[in-house]
């Protein structure tokens, strides 16, 4: 072996912080959002209007909040197809609890506990019984939706008890001109970035997605971490449901139908790798923003709304393709 001073080598970095930021998917997606926005601001007068921006940000906030939880799940090489149904179930429970004359905080806790319980069932089946996340959460997609029907008896809830005003203000109101769900999304993005980057929990989430066997051998509590990830993902669905019901002013068992698809799209577009081991908290809001910007732009450009799904789908495939190309270049 050569006698060069290895300390020279061990201190080197592959690339600086700026270069590594340029190499991430959220950066390129953000660029795409900016380009679409600039083009749209020339094509239409309405796109950049305060009203439209307000609506767009609020719309993607509901999706982005769940995409944060989904990002953690996908980093562990899992998937959660049940988030839309969990929104429905926890939303209905929330509605009924409030209708029954309970205060908002009680409704929030009931809503989150319901979500947490579904996530716990998902997590235990996946981590301890070693069932495929796809199958377990597909089952839960059906179970939670059916329970929402059972619990609500297929009735709409539109009266939210003594603190109705407060409840509707939380989901539908604004602070400093920005919709409350957007604030929640911002705060939760900061929290998730912190969790994923700065805690051992985050480190283990990435390790499990990279090499589960290796993680287990080095003493990572793989099962417990997995359960926590699915519970967290369901809780984000519960939070989103809480805000969304407050914004809509009513809830039926159909709340959140097909939401799982859009959330997974946002997560993948935001740079989470379905093979596991890769993903960014910041990717969740950025991916959700792109999905919403496309949807909104097509509407404003007068494209038949029937085409929306085609475009969103094309972007999912494009995102995965982009990831593949970058992966090859990175060696």
């Amino acid at each position, binding site marked *: *072996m050569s006698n*060069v001073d*290895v*300390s020279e*080598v*061990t*201190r*080197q*970095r*592959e690339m600086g912080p700026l270069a590594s930021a340029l190499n991430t998917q959220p950066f390129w997606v953000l660029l795409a959002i900016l380009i679409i926005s600039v083009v749209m601001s020339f094509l239409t007068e309405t796109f950049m209007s305060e009203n439209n921006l307000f609506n767009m940000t609020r719309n993607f906030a509901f999706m982005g909040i769940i995409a944060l939880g989904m990002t953690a799940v996908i980093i562990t090489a899992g998937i959660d197809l049940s988030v839309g149904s969990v929104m429905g179930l926890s939303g209905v429970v929330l509605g009924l609890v409030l209708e029954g004359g309970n205060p908002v905080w009680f409704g929030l806790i009931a809503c989150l506990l319901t979500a947490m319980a579904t996530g716990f069932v998902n997590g235990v089946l996946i981590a301890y019984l070693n069932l495929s996340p796809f199958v377990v959460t597909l089952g839960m997609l059906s179970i939670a939706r059916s329970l929402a029907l059972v619990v609500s008896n297929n009735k709409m809830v539109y009266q939210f008890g003594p603190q109705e005003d407060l409840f509707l203000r939380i989901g539908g109101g604004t602070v400093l001109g920005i919709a409350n769900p957007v604030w929640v999304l911002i705060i939760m993005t900061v929290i998730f970035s*912190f969790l994923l980057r*700065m*805690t*051992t929990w985050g*480190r283990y989430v*990435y*390790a499990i*997605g*990279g*090499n589960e*066997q*290796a*993680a287990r*051998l*080095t*003493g*990572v509590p793989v099962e417990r971490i997995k359960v926590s990830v699915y519970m967290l993902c369901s809780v984000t669905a519960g939070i989103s449901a809480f805000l969304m019901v407050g914004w809509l002013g009513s809830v039926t068992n159909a709340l959140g139908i097909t939401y799982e698809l859009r959330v997974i799209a946002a997560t993948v577009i935001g740079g989470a790798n379905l093979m*596991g*081991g*890769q993903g960014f908290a910041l990717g969740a809001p950025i991916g959700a923003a792109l999905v919403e910007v496309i949807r909104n732009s097509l509407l404003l450009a007068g494209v038949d709304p029937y085409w929306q799904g085609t475009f969103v789908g094309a972007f999912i495939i494009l995102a995965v393709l982009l990831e593949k190309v970058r992966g090859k270049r*990175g*060696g």
Partner: protein
Amino acid sequence: MALLELRDISKHFGAIQALAGVSFGLEPGEVVGLMGDNGAGKSTLVKIMAGNFPPSEGHLYLEGKEVHFHKPVEARYHGIEVVYQDLALCDNLTAAANIFLGREIKRRLGPLKVVDHVAMFSRAGELFQELKSETRPRDLVRQMSGGQRQAVAIARTRLTDAKIVLMDEPTAAISVRQVAEVLDLIRRLKDKGIAIILISHRMPDVFSVCDRVIVMRRGHKVADKSIDTSSPEEVTGLITGAIEAA
């Protein structure tokens, strides 16, 4: 007194006898080659020492005291580290993150405890310097050569003051130059007084770094002798059964 002593270790899985009455001792700074054909019981033996499962019969003594391991973490706690054949590394993490996986350095941030990236990068850098390996702590393991990956796996054993390092085929499937690097790493561990058990199929590697060679055949120890008094031909004969025992 031997650092590690195995006495009459047997292991059976159902009707299959994987190990039958294996005994040997290991001195500090000693490198022992463990050889044998597939299914001879090498991996079972290593897994017992590493705490993956307990022996069916027999005793393990560490510095004269009997020990019972039920989990790998317990063996590690007693200073026995393992470098697994598939290396047990996470490709998507940095070298430093892999070294510290499961025992991250933390610092306080207000009321919270967070992982200390800076401290881990610098400590990992020190470990690589100590091993004289040109490996960068911030690089992703995915981008590394076989030799560098071995360096990461070996650096992990240096985190704590391990007394014994068990290595399972560290030189399989890497290039000639990298094999030389890995053998150098083994010599550095030996210089620090660490005892090493090296499982290998590669005769030249065993004869270049080991002090002693133990040959296993069908769960039995058939030879345990100093490298100086043996030869590759004799070991080959012992492995295949052409020579009954030595």
